[in-house]
């Protein structure tokens, strides 16, 4: 078996093993209700970490607005589920909501990618941040209602919807209330496995190699006949779509969905970046493990949560310097030989 294939299987095995252990703990009543509440968030953070690693580690472009795509996925899917909560049974409703969430996030990823991917490095990062904030702010000022005459939109207030009775679904900064709780841990794990499948297979395909070639040297990639723009778009769109799937899980796991900074602002996006960096840039499995551990630790260790961001930020700085500083790399090569050389692992 090829090294890559084996590596991929190990990743799936770890996820499935963790799932089985947690399910057993749950069935035998060994999981506190607090812990149970953390399981679905853990899966959507792992999923968005995989999505961001596709963007940062495989495509090599830093996005600090990925929670914006999660926000799109969350709101579009919640809108659908909320609007059809009485007319459709849970299973088909969730599947359609999931597809809507993924498709909308992918569409926004594509549209935003057109201007963003023309830029490089820091500019790209700051524009993704800008788009993330724009998405959040616009949704906060967005009102959608439904009545006998159909859909009503407003950017001012719920009153401006001019509805005849009817139902205000998206209520500006108050968001969407009453989305059915269609998500659960099993669905989260399945979506995580699918995301892993898509990203890991992509990396080991023609398209994935082209994407990584662009990351490593776009001038050489062009000279080798690779269409840099379209492959960048492809990776960015897939990454946004996966982030959208995380959003669908998010919105179908809470009662009131608001486009708050806590979940969808750039700080939240940076938190995901911390997961990716600490798990290893370009290391997909690492992202999943880091996201789960770093999400659970502060939730489980009360004392730790005060210091967690402080510790994460120090670890982030130290990791970057240890892994990327030319002087440190040279020193490590001298001391430990080639093995310790800092390099990105491809999944």
């Amino acid at each position: 078996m090829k090294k890559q294939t084996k590596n991929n299987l190990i990743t799936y095995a770890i996820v499935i093993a963790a799932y089985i252990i947690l399910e057993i703990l749950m069935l035998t009543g060994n999981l506190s209700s607090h812990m149970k509440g953390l399981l679905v968030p853990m899966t959507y953070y792992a999923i968005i970490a995989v999505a961001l690693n596709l963007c940062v580690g495989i495509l090599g472009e830093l996005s600090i607005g990925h929670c914006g795509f999660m926000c799109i996925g969350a709101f579009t899917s919640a809108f659908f589920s909320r609007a059809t909560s009485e007319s459709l049974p849970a299973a088909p409703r969730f599947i359609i909501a999931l597809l809507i969430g993924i498709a909308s996030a992918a569409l926004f990823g594509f549209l935003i990618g057109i201007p963003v991917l023309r830029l490089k490095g820091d500019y790209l990062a700051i524009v993704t941040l800008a788009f993330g904030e724009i998405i959040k702010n616009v949704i906060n000022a967005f009102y959608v209602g439904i009545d006998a005459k159909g859909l009503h939109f407003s950017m001012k207030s719920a009153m401006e919807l001019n509805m005849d009775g009817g139902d205000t679904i998206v209520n500006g900064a108050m968001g969407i209330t009453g989305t059915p709780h269609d998500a659960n841990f099993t669905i989260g794990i399945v979506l995580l496995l699918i995301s892993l499948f898509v990203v890991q297979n992509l990396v080991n395909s023609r398209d994935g190699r082209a994407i990584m070639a662009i990351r490593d040297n776009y001038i050489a990639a062009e000279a080798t006949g690779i269409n840099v723009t379209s492959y960048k778009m492809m990776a960015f769109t897939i990454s946004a779509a996966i982030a959208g799937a995380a959003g669908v899980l998010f919105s179908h796991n809470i009662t009131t969905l608001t486009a708050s900074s806590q979940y969808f602002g750039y700080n939240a996006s940076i938190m995901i970046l911390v997961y990716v960096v600490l798990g290893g840039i370009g290391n997909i499995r690492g992202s999943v493990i880091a996201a789960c551990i770093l999400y659970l630790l502060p939730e489980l260790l009360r004392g730790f949560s005060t210091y967690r961001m402080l510790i994460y930020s120090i670890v982030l700085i130290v990791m970057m310097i240890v892994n990327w500083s030319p002087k440190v790399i040279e020193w490590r090569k001298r001391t430990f030989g080639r093995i310790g050389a800092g390099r990105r692992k491809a999944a």
Partner: protein
Amino acid sequence: MSFLTYLINGLSLGSIYAIIALGYTMVYGIAKMLNFAHGDFIMVGCYIIFSVSAALSGNSVVGIIVAIILCTLLGVTTEFVAYRPLRGAASPLAVLITAIGVSYLLENIALLIYGADIKSFSSVVKWEGLSFADGQLKIQGVTIVTIVVSVVILVVLQLFINKTRQGQAMLAASEDKGAATLMGINVNRTIALTFAIGSSLAAVAGALLCSAYPSLSPYTGAMPGIKAFVAAVLGGIGSIPGAMIGGLVLGIVEILSKTYISSQLADAIVFGILVVVLLVKPTGILGKQIQEKV
């Protein structure tokens, strides 16, 4: 009359953005890195003024001086410890991610020391301001001081860069580090000096920002910092007059859209400008084109 008031408020906010943007643009111009933590230097400066003023029962002048000194030290130390080791790293993302780490670190240190609750900051400008047309048009003292200070800073910086050896060294290092080194310029020291200037300006900007908007929290600097970067990009990164123009445009747009369109959407409009500028003229209003050598 009210439009005029808003315009002047916009100018004042824009002047603060401009002072912050100067720090970004100088650092970006020479070290070719986005110092994501620059906005947090502002917050650090504010807390220093806040603490020193409290200790000296309201004497903010000493507070400002201490803040400028400490922020300068903070900037130089950050550059030395966190950014310098990553100069020449294989990926340009490395130093940006590190800068994000520094930003987080500063915010969380502030959080541990001062807590998350918002402190009310007493203005460093005690002057009431001016009143025109029988009190219909009032301009606050802090507004006037802010605008004047930013103009003074701009003029002094321009003179420094164009007339002094250190300033010329900065220009040379921003053009070509290798060639500058060959000409006997100590590039590392020049970059450190740039950080020192940028960070001291952040302290000044912090004093003015918190005087105009007197609520201080660990996240006070983050959003103004990002908007100032937008201003620097808008004006053309690396250009000092560009940062000034970009800052003013951004401040005015923000205040006017808050007033006349929607306070919810003001930030979206500000960031929308960034996107449009980068699409239409990626080098900004006064920036110049750089092409990678093949």
